[in-house]
């Protein structure tokens, strides 16, 4: 941990805007986004406190990725605003967006350690090469996700779960304080999903805020502090108990939801759009 502290001290002053503690960590206010000419999000409002774990659910094309990209400062909002620690996302290098695995070029000629080191590119600064202590940090990040032995592997040789954990290690190297994970659990078997959750628990202890898009409603209810139900509009945001009502889910998914009535109310099996 010494290495991280030292690097944080040397780099932190350079680019990180001082975080204002009195305002909520993430504020989204009356957000409207058009994507490829169509309205993707309209009138989305919410606040998220530091260190919260939020599952974002909604059918395919509901605007989950769009929301994440706007919060990350990659896409522009048509109107409304996003504030991270009181500032526009474009001013932060502490926001990490982990793409869906299908969007990554896995045959790109880089090693696992190279990809994790990419997370430090912003902190290193232009024209600087990674030093020994940066590689030490990368090794440490890989250790935290249980991949220290795989540093020199080509990224194509990893399992789906390892690929996901590599990207989380990259966000650790980036020293991200807000993690936006786009369907990280799709295609992962249960043990791999569990490994990801163990790492997320560790991040939670460090005060990292996590938003995770998923189609697994059961997982969202069981493992997250808050659930956000999205379908172009914000249809619900609160604790799982507050959000998972039959009425709300039907308004988001229409008929694409399997519900099985049980003694203690309605049990949702899952949405029918995806394989996870």
């Amino acid at each position: 941990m010494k290495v991280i502290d030292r690097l944080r001290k040397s780099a932190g002053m350079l680019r990180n805007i001082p975080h204002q503690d009195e305002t909520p960590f993430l504020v989204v206010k009356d957000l409207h986004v058009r994507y490829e000419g169509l309205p993707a999000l309209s009138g989305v409002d919410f606040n998220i406190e530091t260190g919260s774990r939020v599952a974002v659910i909604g059918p395919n094309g509901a605007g989950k990725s769009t929301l994440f990209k706007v919060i990350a400062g990659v896409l522009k909002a048509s109107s409304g605003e996003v504030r991270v620690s009181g500032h526009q996302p474009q001013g932060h290098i502490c926001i990490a967006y982990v793409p869906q695995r299908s969007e990554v070029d896995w045959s790109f000629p880089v090693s696992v350690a190279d990809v994790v080191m990419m997370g430090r590119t912003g902190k290193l600064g232009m024209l600087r090469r990674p030093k020994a202590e940066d590689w030490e940090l990368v090794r440490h990040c890989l250790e935290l996700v249980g991949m220290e032995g795989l540093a020199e592997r080509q990224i194509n040789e990893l399992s789906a779960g390892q690929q996901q954990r590599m990207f989380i290690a990259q966000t650790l190297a980036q020293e991200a304080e807000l993690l936006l994970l786009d369907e990280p659990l799709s295609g992962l078997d249960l043990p791999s999903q569990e490994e990801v959750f163990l790492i997320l628990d560790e991040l939670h202890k460090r005060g990292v805020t996590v938003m995770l898009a998923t189609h697994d409603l059961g997982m969202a209810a069981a493992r997250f502090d808050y659930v956000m139900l999205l379908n172009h509009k914000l249809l619900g945001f609160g604790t799982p108990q507050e959000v998972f009502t039959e009425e709300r889910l039907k308004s988001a998914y229409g008929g694409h939801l399997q519900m099985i009535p049980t003694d203690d109310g309605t049990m949702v099996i899952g949405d029918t759009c995806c394989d996870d």
Partner: protein
Amino acid sequence: MIDLLLDPLEYAFMMRGLVAAVIVGAVCAMVGTYVVLRGMAFLGDALAHAILPGVAVGYIVGDGARAPLFWWALVAAVLASLGIGAVTKGTRVKQDTAIGIIFAGTFALGIAMISSMRSYAVDLAHFLFGDILGVSNGDLWLTGILGGGVVLVIIAFYKEFMVLAFDPVLATTLRLPTNLLENLLLVLIAVTIVVSLQTVGVALMVAMLVTPAATAYLVTQRLAVMMALAAGIAAVSGVVGLYLSFYLEIASGAAIVLTCTAFFLLVWAAQSLGLRLNSGE
């Protein structure tokens, strides 16, 4: 055998040609690494063709002198890449269509301009297919300085270009100046094309950009190694191609490109054979 290698070197034009082929090959291959990884081959081909009107203007203005060609060609390449961006952004047309429109339009303009000159056939052929044996000492200096500059920029921004090629969204969240880097890469491609004009010409340029880099891509899984290997393959292809052109009396640009292609096919064949042997065991 030694004589076969040494004989051509008695000619000063062969010496200059060999030096030019090595420099141009290495520079093209290093820039080409990003062209291959980002799937920009068509854009590279288009930019190469789009410099023709610039070359023509330079030829007319400079009255046949070489140095003005460089600068006019560079202006044309930069304008063409900006034009492609403008058509993509300003219309509903997709990028490859925009490239096609600008590419064919500028190329036709170049041919029209050159065809109005007196020695049309000879000069057009030089621009299209290169004239490496006509490289002067002055050309060599310009090639060395500009090519060296391109290599230095690629090394200086190595990690930034790597992030941008691998994951543009990550580059944005790391707050790298992505627009600046994108444009810088386009300018690097443009300078590389202009530097290589005399060696392989407009028509075969894309081969120098993509073939050695693609060959290296087949055998390595590390970006830095791919770049170095691509540069090596291209430099060797340049030398081998030039010797072949000397003894077989074929066009030098074509000989160099064919050597690059042969390397690619050899590596590919060796690899598929190796795979088959491995799976057969």
